[in-house]
């Protein structure tokens, strides 16, 4: 009986082994383990898991190929719908998407879909190193993609596959968006992102780095030039702050800045790399999402003695993936739950030295359905810290919205786009990912990029808007 086989664990570095390095933590399945885990899949006639995936990966299809030992075949199935399987296998919240729907999960544990996806992608990269796929024909139209993050890369991959000449404009010096500046090496090795980008380049996608569209050339300029359509995937990259006293003291970082310094600029290798980062002894991270976990765990690896994770609700309400919370816990992050910062305290030189917090308790549910945290009167206390990292979310980057005539936005600053075609209010302009949805997951952004690519293809073919 398949249900007698337990869900196969992926070997991991122990907390002691990973404390002082940025090496990836889960070590990957062996061929044998992958085939054993794949054999747990009962190949449902109507697979619910596929519906749980934002890009509708043919999950039973690729798992069947693994069971048969045909890993290249499995990769081919994956690549039909997923541009970045090595990435998704690592950072997707499978427990709330595909695996949440797995029928085995009702009685036993769900099939480890994410781990299998990662295995296939890694096998292909490390063993097969497959050549780029041929495009399905050639189109004589050009498409501009703004932003080389998950949404933009997916749209670019799909459009290149359909035969379009694609140019990606990226503001930073390295493509990948949040995959390279935000997610740390120990959760997503950068080599994987680079490999995927090299694959896009082999398929003829042109990358223009260090180019901030909207600061000089605008979306209209691109449309006037020779691009038939433009996809905006500029993400949610405007950090939110707590708006409390002392927030501009030295030592207070946004998670974006902290992670960009550490990940993209490799400040963890300072002074071999030139970009500095404050290596605090006592660090507090504010927030409860994946970004907060990432920041806390980076701080830990940079040698902090105490890393506090300050979150105003309880552990049950934390938006981070269970695996990330678990890993953070294992690594000794000090969770200060039901705790809210009130003000930062500094010394006479403007250096951060502490944060005053209040304890909270959960009251009635608010509009989000989560129980609202309420202040416990008189519960003020101070945590001594020399670095604070604010990880309470991001607003959409406003550069494109401000510089593009006729592009409708919401009151939150996101771009208004049709949910199925990702068409905006401006002819020829499509948008997707965090810039439309607000901060969300990598795979959701990829789903939007995929939908946009299909609609861009139709628009370029028919001209109909």
């Amino acid at each position: 009986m398949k249900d007698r086989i337990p869900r196969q664990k992926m070997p991991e570095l122990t907390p002691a082994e990973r404390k002082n390095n940025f090496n990836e933590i889960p070590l990957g399945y062996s061929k044998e383990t992958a085939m054993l885990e794949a054999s747990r899949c009962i190949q449902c006639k109507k697979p619910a898991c596929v519906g749980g995936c934002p890009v509708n990966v043919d999950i039973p299809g690729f798992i069947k190929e693994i069971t048969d030992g045909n890993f290249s075949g499995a990769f081919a199935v994956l690549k039909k719908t997923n541009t970045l399987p090595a990435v998704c296998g690592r950072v997707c919240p499978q427990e709330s998407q595909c695996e949440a729907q797995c029928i085995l999960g009702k009685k036993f544990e769900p099939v480890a879909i994410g781990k299998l996806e990662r295995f296939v992608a890694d096998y292909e990269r490390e063993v097969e190193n497959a050549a780029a796929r041929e495009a399905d024909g050639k189109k004589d139209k050009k498409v501009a993609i703004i932003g080389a993050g998950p949404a933009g890369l997916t749209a670019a991959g799909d459009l290149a596959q359909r035969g379009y000449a694609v140019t990606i404009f990226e503001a930073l010096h390295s493509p990948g968006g949040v995959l390279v500046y935000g997610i740390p090496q120990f959760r997503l090795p950068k080599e994987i992102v680079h490999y995927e980008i090299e694959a896009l380049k082999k398929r003829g996608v042109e990358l223009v780095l260090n180019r901030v569209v909207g600061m000089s050339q605008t979306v209209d300029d691109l449309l006037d030039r020779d691009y038939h359509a433009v996809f905006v995937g500029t993400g949610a990259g405007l950090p939110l702050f707590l708006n409390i006293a002392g927030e501009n003291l030295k030592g207070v970082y946004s998670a974006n800045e902290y992670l960009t310094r550490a990940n993209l600029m490799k400040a963890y290798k300072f002074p071999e790399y030139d970009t500095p980062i404050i290596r605090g002894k006592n660090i507090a991270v504010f927030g409860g999402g994946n970004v907060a976990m990432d920041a806390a765990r980076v701080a830990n690896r940079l040698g902090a003695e105490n890393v506090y994770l300050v979150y105003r609700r309880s552990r049950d309400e934390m938006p981070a993936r269970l695996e990330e919370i678990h890993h953070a816990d294992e690594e000794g992050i000090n969770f200060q739950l039901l705790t809210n910062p009130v003000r930062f305290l500094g010394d006479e030189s403007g250096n951060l030295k502490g944060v005053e917090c209040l304890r909270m308790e959960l009251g009635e549910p608010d509009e989000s359905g989560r129980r609202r945290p309420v202040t416990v009167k008189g519960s003020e206390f101070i945590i001594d810290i020399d670095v604070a990292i604010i990880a309470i979310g991001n607003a959409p980057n406003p550069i494109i919205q401000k510089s593009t005539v006729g592009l409708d936005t919401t009151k939150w600053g996101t771009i208004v786009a049709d949910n199925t075609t990702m068409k905006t209010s401006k002819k020829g302009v499509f948008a997707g990912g965090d810039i439309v949805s607000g901060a969300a997951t990598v795979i959701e952004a990829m789903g939007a990029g995929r939908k946009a690519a299909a609609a861009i293809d139709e628009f370029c073919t028919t001209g109909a808007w």
Partner: protein
Amino acid sequence: MHTIHSNDLVQPTLGRMVVDAPYVAEYRKAGQFIILRIDEFGERIPLTIADADKDKGTITLYYQIVGVTTRKMSLLKKGDHLQDIAGPLGHPTDVKRYGTVACIGGGIGIAPLYPISRAMKEAGNRVVNILGARSKDLLILEDELRAIGDETIVCTDDGSYGKKDFVTGALRDLMAKEKVDIVVAIGPVPMMKAVSDMTREPAIRTFVSLNSIMVDGTGMCGGCRVTVGGGTKFTCVDGPEFNGHEVDFGELVSRLGTYRGEERVSDEKHKHACRIGLDRN
């Protein structure tokens, strides 16, 4: 990769580099900046664009040797390359016809002042340049600015050239003599603060260009935040120019010192490496 056309020390600690960046050269406007990265190991540092040649596709950058990146920059030769140049970034200066514009530059701040002064002149203003330096041999772009300005006043701290005065003294004299409609002040933070304090009372609109610590330059990291008018602004996307009467200069100075300790570590390492390099030459 961006080929370097020339790179000279115009003073012991001040370099002038002309480098290929055709896109920036074509689109830049006065007041904008770029972010560069020297090589794979380099930081991303912002520098204002002092000049550009559209036909040649080059831009001119002035840099003060203060840390590891600028030290490395100073060692590059004609034909070497910079890894990345992103830009133009930031809002251009609000150039229009104001009447009389006092363009005040201190030290290396004279470099970013130069295109603004020129743009202000082209917009039909009477331009009075006030240039300050510690001493004669630390003064840059004097001839260029004299060619633009209706009047150009040079002050040195030690009196080795021009007036022995600070730029604020020259501004006070100018304000006593004629109506100044707007002031643009770029230079060390204490200078910008002193100028802003002086123009607050007569309510003369005063732009200052802030040089805060920055990483991405697109609003993403929030590292360049400054308090302006009681609220937090990002220098990269809300600036780099702000109303000098509203800027919290004290906070800016403090934040600029964030990495002083790390800079020392890095500098020591690279000074050592530089010496090895020099021995070989």
